[in-house]
């Protein structure tokens, strides 16, 4: 069997366009990988073998007739199981929605289908996206392809596992407190949380409506740009959608590092970080400096407000969204989600409003700092993937709560709506991926992608694919 399933969109698309590769041939490779290894990584909740074969044959016919739609035409992709897919069950990782079959597609699903994407199935996730372990009590935990005894992180953990292990060429995730960036960092792929309002959330099961974002997860920055190009844009069906012009994201324009000013936070983002993570992130920053980028230390004291604002906002909004269902079906939720929804019921209006005030202060402070630099860079997470079942991570000899540590570095960009791109910059001594995040100004995804592509070129490490046992 070929290794087409491990190729990037950027490699595959020109070959599909030139008819050197058939979408059917590519799908066969991905389906073979799914059949061989989904039991190892538990990335898929639903596999659409027959439907995807029909779609691939259709794409093959269209391309043969000269009707090539663009770089996503014929690309096989699973999607997180909270995106509405017409006629295909959408569980949101829950038991409550185990038989829910939407009659419409989410806006982003429709856009991907219009671009020619082949839907291979629905991907595992933390129940209702409310958590970071991806230890789903109803569908089982997703498993990290770099070590299947370890977590993928979540809540888009099935996506992280699928893309890293070649079970999906790329995918979309959702990110409310790091749920795109956490599994991307732990599984060694690229994840982009765009600016709030940049990508439609219509037809996406919500977690916390003022923090939720939809964005790409992919094997390269260039692939993330292709996906963002396909899904970005105003949607009148999404009240949070921003009616702003869509930039040209793909292909990612090259940039001269000598014109780049990189801000490195001197507080918060490097506090309590595993030494190996910090060393790899600082090596990537040094590589940018060696290319001529100007690196300056910045300080954002208001980041201290982030955890209070994130935890209050996500809990209050999630409990409000689930309230009616929760009053009738509390026992059908997993234990970890149930207790969070119970706790959210007791938050006060004063706490919620103070959280929103905190968000505004944080937004102003970050915008001020970003006015003096092109981007901020920081670790995506303070650790590498822990073992499944461990609720804690050990950082420099201290035990810390896994979920809180996942949220800590992600939350500022959910609270402010600013874009953040996570990409791999190295491996730990145990062979586990390490991620760095690049934070930009609102709606400046072009710059994030440019800097990300530059980091891919200059970071001092060589990426490789995970090796799963043969089946």
């Amino acid at each position: 069997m070929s290794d087409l399933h491990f190729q990037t969109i950027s490699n595959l698309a020109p070959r599909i366009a030139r008819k050197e590769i058939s979408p059917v041939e590519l799908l066969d490779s991905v389906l073979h990988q799914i059949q061989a290894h989904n039991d190892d990584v538990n990335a898929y909740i639903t596999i659409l073998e027959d439907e995807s074969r029909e779609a691939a044959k259709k794409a093959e016919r269209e391309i043969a007739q000269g009707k090539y739609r663009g770089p996503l035409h014929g690309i096989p992709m699973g999607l997180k199981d909270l995106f509405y897919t017409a006629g295909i069950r959408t569980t949101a990782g829950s038991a409550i929605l185990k038989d829910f079959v939407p009659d419409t597609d989410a806006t982003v699903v429709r856009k991907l289908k219009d671009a020619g994407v082949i839907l291979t199935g629905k991907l595992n996730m933390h129940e209702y996206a409310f958590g970071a372990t991806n230890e789903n009590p109803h569908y089982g935990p997703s498993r990290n392809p770099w070590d299947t005894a370890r977590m993928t992180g979540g809540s888009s953990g099935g996506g992280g596992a699928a893309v890293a292990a070649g079970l999906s060429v790329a995918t979309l995730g959702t990110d409310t407190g790091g749920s795109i960036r956490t599994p991307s960092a732990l599984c060694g792929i690229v994840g982009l949380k765009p600016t709030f309002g940049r990508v439609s959330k219509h037809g996406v099961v919500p977690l916390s409506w003022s923090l939720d974002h939809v964005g790409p997860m992919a094997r390269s920055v260039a692939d993330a740009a292709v996906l963002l190009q396909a899904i970005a844009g105003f949607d009148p069906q999404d009240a949070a959608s921003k009616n702003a012009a869509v930039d040209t994201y793909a292909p990612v324009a090259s940039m001269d590092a000598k014109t780049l000013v990189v801000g490195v936070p001197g507080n918060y983002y490097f506090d309590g970080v595993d030494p190996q993570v910090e060393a790899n992130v600082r090596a990537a920053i040094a590589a940018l400096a060696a290319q001529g980028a100007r690196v300056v230390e910045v300080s954002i004291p208001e980041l201290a407000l982030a955890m209070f604002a994130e935890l209050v906002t996500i809990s209050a909004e999630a409990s409000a969204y689930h309230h009616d269902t929760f009053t009738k079906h509390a026992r059908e939720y997993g234990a970890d989600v149930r207790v969070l929804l119970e706790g959210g019921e007791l938050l006060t209006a004063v706490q919620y409003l103070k959280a929103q005030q905190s968000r505004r202060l944080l937004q102003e402070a970050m915008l001020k700092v970003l006015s003096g630099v092109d981007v901020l860079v920081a670790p995506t997470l303070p650790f590498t993937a822990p073992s499944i079942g461990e609720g804690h991570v050990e950082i420099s000899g201290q035990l810390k709560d896994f979920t809180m540590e996942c949220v800590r570095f992600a939350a500022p960009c959910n609270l402010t709506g600013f874009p953040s791109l996570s990409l791999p910059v190295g491996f730990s001594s145990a062979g586990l991926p390490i991620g760095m995040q690049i934070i930009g100004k609102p709606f400046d995804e072009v710059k994030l992608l440019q800097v990300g592509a530059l980091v891919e070129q200059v970071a001092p490490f060589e990426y490789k694919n995970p090796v799963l046992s043969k089946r």
Partner: protein
Amino acid sequence: MEEFLRQAFLLSGIDVNPEDFPYIVGQMQGLLQASAVLPSFSLQDVVPILTLDTGVTK
């Protein structure tokens, strides 16, 4: 504290798992600690809350 929680959930109509009470108390204490860093907000800090969703512009 448990009786307070039991009454609060009774009023909200939630079928709470009593075994979760210690965790919920822990959550509330955690938020109380986290709120210690909050500043005193001024009047103008109140105004833009309603526009936060669409207030981010290029």
